[in-house]
């Protein structure tokens, strides 16, 4: 079966803590993502996301605090706006925007994190690998 590769950019305060909670709750989910922890989802730069696709990711997850809950007041709103614009860019580049997920997962939502990972993995599985032109050219 196709095992998609996922890069997860998680904010420290909410989603990474939520992922920790999934761990302490011993929830089981698909091992397809590797987490990269930032202080805030607003540290995530669209360049990082494009780079992840370039380097072989089939999907990218950005996890931040729920709207209004950002530890840095409004970092997640910046992320939301960037993703909004980036989605249009991805569309122009022919990349299915479902390959980029923005999820609000709080420190209390271990189960949500596990569900998102499972669901995202399944969705990417059904989509198949990202045959990014630039990667195909390199081959």
């Amino acid at each position, binding site marked *: 079966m196709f095992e998609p590769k996922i890069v997860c950019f998680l904010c420290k305060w909410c989603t990474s803590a939520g992922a920790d909670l999934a761990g302490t709750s011993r929830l089981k989910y698909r091992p397809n993502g590797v987490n990269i922890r930032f202080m805030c989802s607003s540290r995530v*730069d*669209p360049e990082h996301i494009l780079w992840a696709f*370039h380097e072989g990711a089939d999907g990218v997850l950005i996890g931040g605090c729920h709207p209004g809950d950002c530890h840095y007041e409004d970092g997640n*709103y910046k992320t939301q706006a960037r993703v909004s614009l980036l989605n249009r*860019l991805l569309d122009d580049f*022919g990349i299915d925007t479902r390959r980029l997920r923005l999820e609000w997962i709080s420190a209390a939502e271990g189960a949500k994190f596990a569900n998102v990972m499972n669901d995202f993995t399944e969705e990417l599985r059904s989509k198949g690998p990202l*045959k990014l032109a630039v990667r195909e050219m390199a081959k």
Partner: protein
Amino acid sequence: MSKPKVAFYWAASCGGCEIAILDIGDRILPLSEAVEIVFWPCAIDIKYDDVRAMEDGEIDLCLFNGAIRNSENEEMAELLRQKSKLLVAYGSCAYEGCIPGLANLKTRKEILRRSYIEVPSMDNPESIYPRTRTEVPEGILELPELYDTVYTLDQVVDVDYYVPGCPPVADQTWAVLEAVLEGNLPEKGSVVGAGTKIVCDDCPLEKKETKISGFFRPHQIMPEPDICLLEQGIYCAGIGTRAGCEALCPSVGMPCRGCYGPPPGVFDQGAKIVSALGSVIDSEDPDEVDRIMEQIPCPAGLFYRFSLPHSILRRKTTDDYKE
């Protein structure tokens, strides 16, 4: 000591860079005194075979403008690389793909169909497409092969220096020529003839706080004359564009298009500008944010107007959307 041999070449580009060389104005005279121009198809009648006949490295400096769009461009890039001691990607097309590079948002097939079938002025009932080889009674006609993807010069051959700009401004061109002539060369791979900062650094418009609640194209509003255009909702690429042009456009009230490419700390100009713009949207409502963002026409074309082939993704991927 013999005079340095200089070549100019024009690949996939509009020709503006050729004009830009002439833009150095009177300084062309001392230049032609100082160097021997051995190849310049636009100005001098020297054939490709003459170049092929040269010794390797015989040309001291080649300013190569234009992107690599077809097999001829690539062949000449390889040939000039071989014959030149210094190969300079001159102008935005050679450096990062520029306007021709926008073709990477389409496939060759789409482009040919558009150009030879779909355009209203085309009358081609038999759907004839250009071919690389065509037999006619007189013999075989050959055309270069149009590539599916536009490349920058350094994606096909090794490049020594880059001069950004669409086109490069005259003073910067002269400075590069001067530096080469004087042997005052920076580290290989450098961008020369440009600044290290961004256009904003040279821009005379006043900057306060950037909060964007809507985007406008220049024709849609009459901007305040002395205020930063971006703050007024006019997309200006100055925040993500290398300095060097003396902020020509914003100085006269037109937004920067980004032709000098990314500043030194940035690789992907478009992504970085997306990131910056996303940071200053004045709304927390996702639907409103989407509406604001939709006011930007064709983000890929806008943000990568000059740098698409040189970006992380380089071109459009064609088979990801299915179902």
